[in-house]
C-alpha cells in the first residue's frame, strides 16, 4: 500500500510560500548559517543602495532577496509535504478493527481507539487488536508471526497463560481480553508524532557537511574582503554591490538551502513505503548497511510448511503410511498437521468422521515433544520431527534406506517428519517450504549493492543450505537461538560491518536492539517494537530493501547536490571576475562573451537564485539508486553532477545574459 501525496497542489504551495516569507526573519535562519550569510549579504547590498542607487543595483538587491526566499521555499515545501504525508498516514485505515465490549454490547472501533482497560472480544479468525490479558474463555492462538513457532498455543484466563499479544490471531473459540498496553496503532501514532520533532535534528553527516559549508563561507568572506583591499592598493575601483554579488554567488547557497529539504524528503519517502523511522539517523545508517539478518519465516517463506509427499519404506505402501500419518495428525492443530491431513485426503479420500476407531486416545502435538499421535487398542502411531522419533525408537530399528531419503528432503530445502507404528518406522513425510516469488531478483540486487545477507532459521543446516542456495542468500545461521543471533551481530559489528535486521518476536528484541538498523513489523510485540529503529506498517520484512535504498538515495542526493553546488563556482568565476577586473586588462578577458559587466553580474546572481528552484524537485524526489558496483555509481554520478555542475552554469548564465543584457 502506497499512500502518495501529489507533489504540487495549490494549497500546499500557498502554505509553503507563506512559510518561506515568514522565514525571512533572520531569527528563523539560525540553524542554516549559509542562508543567514546570504540574508546578511542581501542586507548589506540593500544598505549600499542608500548612497549609490541605480536600476542595475536595485535589480541585484532584489535577486539577492529572492535567493533567500527560494532557499526558504525549498525547506518549507519539504516540511509541508511531510506534514501532508503524515496526515494521510494517520487517516489511512491501516488498523485492525477491534470489537470493543461495552455494557454487554459489542461495538466496532479501530484498534487505535482502544484504551488501556478496555475489554475486547476475539473469535476464531480475528486478529488480537492489542496486548492484553484474557479475562474469560480459552482458545488456541497462532503466535507464529511473533515467536516464529508455528504450533498454536493455548491461551486462557488465569495465571500463567493469560497474556496475549497484539497482532496474533485466534484460531479457535472465543476470548474476552482486557487491554493492558496501548495498542500497536496508538504506539504508531506516538511514533508518527515523533517524526515531526526528529525532523528538526541534524544527523551527524549533515553536521559535518554544514561544517564544510560554513568553512567555505568563511574562507570566501576572507577572499572577497582581501580582493577589496588589493583592488584599492592597485587603484582599482570595485563597488560594494559587485563584491556582495560575488560572495553570494560563490558561497554554497544551493546545497545550503537544500540540505534540510533533502533530509525531510528522505524521511517522507520512507513514509511512503509505510515505514516509520524513529529518527533521521536511522535512515542514513540503513544506507550504510553491509550485512542484513532476517528470519526465514515471513521473509523467505510464506509462513508455514506444507506436506508435499509421503515416502514409505519397505514393506509399507504409500497408502498405509498416508493412513497412519492421517490418524497421527488428528490431534495436531498446527498448520503442518492440517496440511498432512489435507494431502492424505486429497490422494486417498480419507474422512475423519468415518474412521472406525474405538477407544482412541489422542496425543496432542506440543512444541516441547514435537510429536503427535494416537493410541487405540493394538495400535500406537506417532508422527513428528525425525530426531524426536529417533529418540523413541531403538537405534538399530531406524532403517538405513530412510536416512538417504531424509538427506534428500533436507537438501531440497524441505523438512522430513517420521511416522512410526508400534515402534516400527513406516516412512517419512516431506514437508515443503513455500518460498515467496520474486525473491531471487531481490537478493541478487542486494548482492550487487555489496550487502551480505544472512538467513536465520531454526532449521537444520542441510535445509538452510538448500534454501540459501536456491534463493541466492550469502549465508545462513541454522538452529539459531536469540543468543546466537545476538552473538552473530556483535561479531559482524566488531569486523566493522553495519548490521541491519528485520524481526518481530520478543525473542528478537535483544538482537534488534544490538543491530544498527532494526526494522520491526508493526504486528510485532511491544518489546520488539521498542527495540527497533523503524517500524513497518505493512508487515513485509523484504521491505528492508526499500529502506536501504532510500537511505542510499538520501546520502547520494546530499553528495550529488554538494558536488553540483561546488562545481558551479567555476563558471561563476568566469562570469563575474572579468566583469570586476576587466578594466585592468588591455584585452578582453571575458571568455564567456557576456553582454556587459553589469549584465554578467546580474545573470550570475539570477542563475544562483533560479538553480535552487530547479534543483528543489530533485532534492525532494532524491537521486535514484541503482544497484551497481560503487566504482560505476561514482563515475556515473560524477559525470552527471560533477561535470554537469561545471557545464550547467556556463549554459545557464549565458542564456540569462541574452535576456538580461537588453535592460541593464
Amino acid at each position: 500500500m502506497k499512500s502518495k501525496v501529489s507533489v504540487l497542489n495549490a494549497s500546499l504551495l500557498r502554505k509553503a510560500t507563506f512559510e518561506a516569507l515568514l522565514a525571512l526573519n533572520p531569527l528563523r535562519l539560525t540553524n542554516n548559517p549559509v542562508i543567514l550569510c546570504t540574508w546578511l549579504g542581501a542586507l548589506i547590498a540593500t544598505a549600499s543602495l542608500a548612497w549609490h542607487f541605480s536600476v542595475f543595483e536595485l535589480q541585484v538587491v532584489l535577486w539577492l532577496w529572492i535567493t533567500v526566499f527560494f532557499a526558504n521555499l525549498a525547506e518549507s515545501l519539504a516540511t509541508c509535504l511531510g506534514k501532508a504525508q503524515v496526515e494521510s498516514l494517520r487517516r489511512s485505515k491501516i488498523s485492525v478493527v477491534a470489537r470493543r465490549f461495552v455494557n454487554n454490547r459489542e461495538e466496532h472501533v479501530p484498534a487505535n481507539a482502544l484504551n488501556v482497560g478496555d475489554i475486547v472480544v476475539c473469535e476464531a479468525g480475528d486478529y488480537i487488536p492489542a496486548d492484553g490479558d484474557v479475562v474469560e474463555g480459552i482458545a488456541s492462538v497462532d503466535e507464529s508471526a511473533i515467536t516464529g513457532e508455528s504450533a498454536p498455543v493455548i491461551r486462557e484466563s488465569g495465571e500463567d497463560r493469560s497474556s496475549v499479544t497484539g497482532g496474533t490471531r485466534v484460531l479457535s473459540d472465543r476470548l474476552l481480553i482486557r487491554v493492558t498496553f496501548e495498542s500497536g496503532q496508538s504506539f504508531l501514532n506516538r511514533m508518527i508524532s515523533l517524526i515531526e520533532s526528529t525532523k528538526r535534528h541534524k544527523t551527524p553527516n549533515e553536521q559535518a557537511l554544514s561544517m564544510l559549508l560554513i568553512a567555505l563561507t568563511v574562507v570566501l568572506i576572507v577572499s572577497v574582503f582581501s580582493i577589496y583591499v588589493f583592488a584599492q592598493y592597485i587603484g582599482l575601483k570595485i563597488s560594494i554591490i559587485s563584491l556582495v554579488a560575488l560572495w553570494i554567488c560563490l558561497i554554497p547557497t544551493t546545497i545550503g538551502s537544500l540540505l534540510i529539504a533533502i533530509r525531510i524528503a528522505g524521511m517522507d519517502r520512507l513514509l511512503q513505503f509505510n515505514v516509520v523511522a524513529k529518527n533521521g539517523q536511522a535512515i542514513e545508517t540503513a544506507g550504510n548497511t553491509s550485512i542484513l539478518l532476517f528470519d526465514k519465516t515471513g521473509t523467505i517463506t510464506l509462513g508455514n510448511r506444507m506436506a508435499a509427499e509421503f515416502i514409505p519404506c519397505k514393506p509399507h505402501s504409500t497408502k498405509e503410511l498416508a493412513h497412519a500419518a492421517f490418524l497421527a495428525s488428528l490431534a495436531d492443530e498446527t498448520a503442518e498437521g492440517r496440511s498432512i491431513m489435507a494431502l492424505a485426503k486429497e490422494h486417498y479420500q480419507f474422512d475423519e468422521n468415518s474412521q472406525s476407531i474405538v477407544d482412541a486416545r489422542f496425543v496432542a502435538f506440543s512444541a516441547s515433544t514435537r510429536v503427535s499421535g494416537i493410541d487405540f487398542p493394538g495400535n500406537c502411531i506417532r508422527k513428528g520431527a525425525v530426531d524426536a522419533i529417533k529418540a523413541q525408537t531403538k537405534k538399530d530399528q531406524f532403517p538405513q534406506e530412510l536416512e538417504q531419503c531424509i538427506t534428500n528432503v533436507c537438501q531440497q530445502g524441505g523438512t522430513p517428519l517420521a511416522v512410526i507404528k508400534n515402534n516400527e518406522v513406516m516412512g517419512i513425510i516431506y514437508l515443503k517450504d513455500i518460498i515467496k516469488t520474486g525473491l531471487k531478483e531481490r537478493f541478487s540486487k542486494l548482492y550487487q549493492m555489496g550487502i551480505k545477507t544472512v538467513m536465520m532459521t531454526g532449521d537444520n543446516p542441510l535445509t538452510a543450505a538448500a534454501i540459501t542456495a536456491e534463493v541466492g542468500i550469502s549465508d545462513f545461521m541454522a538452529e539459531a537461538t536469540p543468543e546466537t543471533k545476538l552473538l552473530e551481530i556483535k561479531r559482524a559489528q566488531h569486523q566493522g560491518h553495519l548490521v541491519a535486521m528485520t524481526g518481530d518476536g520478543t525473542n528478537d528484541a535483544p538482537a534488534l536492539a544490538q543491530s544498527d538498523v532494526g526494522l520491526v513489523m508493526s504486528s510485532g510485540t511491544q518489546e520488539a517494537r521498542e527495540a527497533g529503529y523503524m517500524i513497518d506498517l505493512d508487515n513485509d520484512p523484504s521491505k528492508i530493501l526499500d529502506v536501504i535504498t532510500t537511505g542510499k538515495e538520501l546520502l547520494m542526493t546530499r553528495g550529488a547536490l554538494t558536488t553540483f553546488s561546488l562545481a558551479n563556482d567555476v563558471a561563476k568565476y568566469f562570469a563575474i571576475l572579468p566583469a570586476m577586473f576587466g578594466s585592468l586588462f588591455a584585452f578582453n578577458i571575458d571568455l564567456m562573451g557576456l553582454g556587459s559587466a553589469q549584465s554578467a553580474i546580474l545573470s550570475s546572481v539570477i542563475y544562483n537564485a533560479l538553480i535552487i528552484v530547479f534543483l528543489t524537485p530533485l532534492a525532494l524526489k532524491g537521486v535514484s539508486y541503482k544497484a551497481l558496483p560503487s566504482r560505476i555509481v561514482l563515475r556515473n554520478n560524477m559525470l552527471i553532477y560533477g561535470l554537469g555542475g561545471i557545464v550547467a552554469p556556463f549554459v545557464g548564465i549565458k542564456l540569462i545574459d541574452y535576456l538580461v543584457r537588453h535592460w541593464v
Partner: protein
Amino acid sequence: MHLYDFYLGAGFIGLLATSSPLLGAYMHFSFNRSIGPAEARLYRISQLSTAPMSWKQYLKALLSIQLMSLIFMMAIFLLNSKAPISLDLAFNLATSFITNTAWQNIPGESHLSHFSQMIAITTQNFMAPAVGTAALLALTRGIFQTDSETIGNFWVDFFRMIVFILLPLSLLLALFLVSQGSIQNLASTLEISTLEGAKQILPMGPAASQTAIAALGGNGAGFFSQNLAHPFANPTGLTNWVLAFSVMLIPASLAHYYGIQIGSKKVGWVLFSVMLCFFIAFFAISFLGTQQLNSLEGQEIRFGNLGSLLIAHAATATANGTMNIAPESLSPLSSAVMMFQMMLGEIIFGGSGTGLYGLLLFSMLTVFIAGLMIGRDPEYLGKKIQSAELKWILFALMLPSCVTLLGSAYTCWVGSTDKTLFEILYNFASNVGTNGSALSGFKFDSSSDNIMFGVAMWVGRLSTLIPVLILAGILSSKKRIESIFEVSTPLFGLLLTFVILMINGLTFLPSLLLGPLNEYASLLEKLS
C-alpha cells in the same frame, strides 16, 4: 624548446618515477624495523622512552624539540661573530630554519660565521624535515591502525628519518657535489686576482655539505646568498639537474612509502601521479610563459631555460624554496605559477612529510565530498570521516590560506607603495607555506617584517602540524569499517585534483588576477 630540453625533462621524470618507489620501500623498511642494540643504547643514554605515545604526548615531544631549537638557534645567532644580528632578525632566522622555510633575510656568506652555519643551520636542515616526516608517520599510523590509543613514538621516528634516510643521502650528494667542483673547506675567504689584475675576495666555507642537505631536506637555504646560482654551490649543469632531482626525491618517495605502509601500493601511485601531473602541467605553463616573452630574463645563463626553471619549479612545488634564478624578473606568468604552487599548501610533493600529509588531508576532504555519492557515509580507507575529523581537516587546509590573504591585505593596508601586490602575495604565500622562496625578498627586512613573517611561518607550520597529529589520534582510536570507496583508482586521482584546484582556486584566483596575471598581460601588451 630544444631536443635536449626534452631529454632532460623526460629523464628527470623517468628517474623520479623509477627511483622513488625504491627509496619508498627502503623507508618502509627503515621506519618499521625493530630497535637494534646501538639504537636502543642511544635512547637509553638520552633517557628517552621508546614506548608508543598518545597524540598529546607525541605533540608535546615534537613541540618541545621545536622550542628548544628556537632558543638554541636564537642564542647562536645573537652571538654570531661575523656581523651583529638583532633580536627580531634572530627570531626570524631561527624560525625560518626550524619551520623548514629557510626564509633567509640575511646574506649567509658575508654575515654568518661558519659556526653559525654549521651548528645552527645545518642541524636544523636535518631536524626540520625529520619533524615533518614524523608527523606524517603518525598520521599514517592513525590511518592503518584500529582501536589504538597511540600513534607511535616521536623520538624513534625523528631519529630514524635523520640517521637512516637523511644522513646517508646527504653524504652521497655532498661527495658528488664536491666531485663536480663545489667547495667544502673551513677557510674564510680566498683572495684572487682577476684577469684584469683586480683583487677579488671570494667567500669560502663548507658549501657542498650545506647545499646537499638543504636540497634533500627541503630547507633550501643557500650557503651563499645567490643560493644555487652560485658556481661554488652548483658548479655544473649536471649538479643542477641532480640537485633538482634531490629536491623532489624524498617527498616523492614518501608517497610510495605511504602506499606500502597502508598495504596498497596503488594508493601511493595515485598520490604520486596526482603530484606529478600538477608538476608537469604547471611546469609546462611556466615554460610557455618564458618562451612567449622569448627571453632568458631572470634565469641562470649557465643552465639555460629548462635548467633554470627545473630548480625553480622543483623548489616551489616542494616546500624547499632553493633558487637558482631571480623570480622577480622572471616572466610574471612563470612566477605566478610558482606562487600558486605555494598557495596550494605545498602539496605538490611538498616538504618532507608535510607535503604528503597535506595531500592526505585533501584526499580525506575529497572522500567527504564525493564519497556520499556512492550512497554511503564517507570513509577513507575504512575510517569514517565525520565532524570530529572534518573539523581539523578544514582547519589545517583553510587557516593557512586565510592567513596568507589577511596578511597580504594587512600589508597593503598599512604598507608603503614601494612593494607591488605580487611581491606581497608571493612572499606571504612563501612564508605561510614554509617555502622560503623570495620575490624581491630584501624589500621585506624591516624589524616589523621580520616579526610578522616569523609569526606567519609559525602559523603556517603549526596550523597544519598540530591538526595532523590530533587527526592521527582520532583516526587511530577509530574502528575500521569495510571500505567500499576506492582511493586507488585514476578516477579518485582526478577528483582529488579537482578538489585541490577548486578549494584553492576559489580562494586565490582573484588575487592571482589582480597581481601577477595583470602584470603579465600588460607585458604581453607592450611586446605586441
